[in-house]
């Protein structure tokens, strides 16, 4: 298993405002798999993603990535962990506004000793012709492609995507999902995608459904639908 969580718990607040968001989550994901975490608002899916990404700290339990325990690591070590292993994609692209597409990607290129080839990545993501544009000159989909390229350039072993299509229209969402699919196939990147979108579960290897901080469903897709054929996005 590439990713394993065991009885991960996380709560916020105290007294009257106390809320247990994760109530002992235990999941595992194979290397190179695409996995979707679904659930309603407040189910804990983003919190689980953030705990796996080392952005949030779990109260208890264990999270192992590639066999290494990340719970209990210091902020400095967590930063190293993210630097060496992870790529992040968020709903809002969070690009540096006054850097071009190429430069935004280059920001992360330097974080890895063996980054992917920039021109190839630009080509794969269809950004070659936009590489010298600033984020404000791009559409939402193009900005998200840029964010994906930025996350991928350092060739991460694990790509964490928090609502990657949340801010996009249906056609653009499909394009992005096709792209993720292609990246997964080409670079064998393990992907964890948090989404509200019910259709996305059809294109991935594994589906985890959370409700009230607990796993309600956790299954593997027997028959994957290619992203290009997804409906109701």
């Amino acid at each position, binding site marked *: 298993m590439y990713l394993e969580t065991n009885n991960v718990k996380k709560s916020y607040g105290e007294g009257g405002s106390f809320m247990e968001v994760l109530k002992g989550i235990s999941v595992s994901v194979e290397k190179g798999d695409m996995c979707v975490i679904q659930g309603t608002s407040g189910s804990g899916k983003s919190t689980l993603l*953030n705990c796996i*990404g080392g*952005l*949030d700290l779990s109260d208890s339990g264990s999270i192992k990535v590639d066999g290494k325990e990340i719970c209990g690591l210091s*902020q400095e070590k967590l*930063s*190293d962990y*993210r*630097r*060496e292993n*992870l*790529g*992040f994609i*968020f709903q*809002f692209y*969070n*690009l*540096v*506004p*006054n*850097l071009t597409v190429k*430069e935004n990607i*280059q*920001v*992360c290129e*330097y*974080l890895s000793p063996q980054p992917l080839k920039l021109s190839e990545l630009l080509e794969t993501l269809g950004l070659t012709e936009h590489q010298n544009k600033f984020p404000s000159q791009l559409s*939402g989909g193009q900005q998200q492609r840029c*964010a994906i390229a*930025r*996350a991928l350039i*350092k060739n991460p072993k694990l790509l964490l995507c928090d609502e990657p299509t949340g*801010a996009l229209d249906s056609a653009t969402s499909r394009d992005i999902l096709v792209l993720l699919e292609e990246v997964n196939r080409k670079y064998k990147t393990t992907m964890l995608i948090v989404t509200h979108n019910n259709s996305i579960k059809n294109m991935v290897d594994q589906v985890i459904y959370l409700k009230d901080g607990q796993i309600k469903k956790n299954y593997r897709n027997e028959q994957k639908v290619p992203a290009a054929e997804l409906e109701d996005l």
Partner: protein
Amino acid sequence: MQKILRKRILRDLKENLARYLALALLIVLGMYIVVSLVAAADTVIVRSAGAAKEQAAEDGQFRLFAPLDSVQLQKLEEKGVTVEAHFYLDYEIADGSVLRVFANREKIDRVQADFGELPGEEKDIFLEKRYCEEHDISVRDRITIGNRSFTVCGIGTTPDYEAPYRNLSDSAVDSKQFGTGFVSLADYEELKETVKSLQSEEHVYAYLLNDRLTDKELKEILQDFCLSAEDVGDTYFQEYWDRTGGKLAEFKEGMDGLTDASADLADGMSALEKQGKTLSETAAMLEAVPAFGGLQAGITGYTEGVADAAEGSRKLADGISGFSRETKKWLDDNFDTGLSKLTQFLAAHDNIRIGAAADDVMINKMAGLFAGVLLIILFAYVISVFVVHTIEKESQVIGTLYALGVKRRELLTHYLFLPVIITFVSGIIGTVVGYSSFGVRTQMKDVYNYFSVPDFSVLHEPYLLVYGILMPPAAAALTNLFVIYRKLKKPALSLIRREQKMSKSRQIKLAKTGFVRTFQIRQLLREMRTAFTIFFGMLFALLVCMISLNCYVLCEHVREDTVKDTKYEYMYTYKYPGETVPEDGEEAYGVTLKKEVLGYNLDVTLLGIHDGNPYFEAPVSGGQGDVLISEAVASKFGLNTGDDLVLKDGENDRSYAFTVKGTVPYSAGMFVFMDIDSLRKLMDKNEDYYNIVFADHALDIDSGRLYAASSKEEVQKSADVFVELMWPMIIMLSAVSALIFLVVMYLMLKVMVDRSASSISMLKVFGYRKKEIRKLYLNGNLAVVAVSALVSIPVSKAVMDALYPYLVSNVAANLNLTFSWWMYAGLFTAIIVLYFLSMPILMRRINKILPAEVLKNRE
């Protein structure tokens, strides 16, 4: 990565060019002023010391009642001291100014020519440069002195009149009214013969100790020198001597006559006694003749009587001799009759004319260096507000970069880069301009316009380069490091979510007020940091402003007080007072003593007057220990009624302690008043002694009797000089402070607007109008500016009032720094006006915020 991020720095700079340019310009201006000010100070300090060495500047000078004789000069030479006579005469020139004429110097305080040459030819005169500047005199011009015409052969300086005060008790240099000139010895002697000088010749000697004696040792030698009255040719002196010290000499001569006469009497009686013995022997032969028995008895009686008388006269002679000896000893002990009595001994370090420029600029240097650091910290903090604003704006980007593994220190370096580079580049430009000959010479204008110093070549001290170039980026790095680190310390998730920690101070519950007021208060609480920056920017600007305003009020008060308090029209200071006080004159007795304050020995005149003197409201009463002090003395030395006042007589190494009994409303001079009779007693003077006469019109007094004659008009002109001299500095500092405040306030308010751009955009979406938005976002700032002004004005005034005595420690004047109410009101109004001036620019910024902005940000 840094390489890539650096690309955005340039873009960030371009996007906010106006903001950074304004700030950079202020830093350039600030560093230019500070560096040029300090470089000018260093140039003056070092170069004037060099010039002093080159011109053989005196170690000190002393003033004698009459010239030294050859024996005394030889004694001083044997002691290894170099002495040179710097006698002088003061002449009134056609335009009413006074020129002090010396014979050219050979050994000490040599003249240095800026233009022309030293006096060599007959009827050549070398003039001091400041006097020439004020009177448009050039080389080859002609000038009439004491009805003799001279050609100006050269213009330059001497180190003993670097600050060309006419009198050491003057509080300001006025080169329109006074200057110095140097002629050949022959011309000087010829001038003296004209008897046209304003006063008698002053016998001043300059000395160089040559490391052989100390000032104190030399003074002790001089105090022992005695001169004979016959050596002094001055007729006024002889007349004065006959009435004073001469009387004592006559008395001593009488004592000698009495002693001699009694000795003669004793001698005569002894001779008679001897003759009486012969007569007795003859009478003894008559013993055999009974008829002469009676005669013999008579002779015996006579000779015995003569013997007794002889014995008595010898005793009388011994007694008178002893009495005479003891009387003379007592007189010598109790009456100072030595003609060599030192009238003044002034070591160079106590002479306000010498090294004055260096003393003056030393304050500029220290204040400049300190103000420079404060200025840079202020601007560095202003930049940090921008950076913090940028970080908050880019919070999600930063969080994402953290999530991707970018380290905090990498972003810290990135965000530090711009403040450091702006301050570094601005520092370099400011320093280069300030350090250039143009910058330094511009700052030195003040020195050249007041002091009489040679043209100095600009000195470049390496430490100033380090200060000007490295201090700004270092200060910016430190200030921003602290502020930025705190902002970047947040966890990645918190940054991505744009979580804002709300301090408890912002969570206060507001009393029921209208919506607008509540909104304004909430906005203010949110923008507390920028509000504080406005406050500190205003405080700093006001501190700079207060330097100039205090300078202005000080000069104005000196001028007004001088006009108000100088009630006499003429003041005559005597060297040889006449037997009677001139008709219509009010006698006084003045003694110049010293009192130290903040390292400076200032002259204080102890003035003995009669109660009811019409020119001073000083109800003096008897008692040697009781004095009244002028307001100038009270403020300069911080004295109050009941305090002890100790004044030092430097010439005689004596100190006088007094009790302050009250303050006299007199600010025009450093005067201490006491009853004239008490002062006479204290100083062992005759009961009718005086040396100053005040009058309400010009009196007919021979100039040969006088040290100085000054009129109310001259005193007032001298007071006007203060304002005139300081005006350019007052204007410059006021303008700089206004600019600092305006830029800091504008930049901070603009940051406030930028931070609220989304909310403003949202309000526009809701349908708010420009006026309403202005009311919500800008009008609330008026309260910040107004409250900051209400706090900053008194605080900056109090701080500068406390510091000001140190800035003007060498100025002997009443430190009246009181502002009238309209000045406070004017200052407050000026601040509010500056605030309103920045409003249209801020409104333009608000108008540029589109309703779509909020949608764009949330896209």
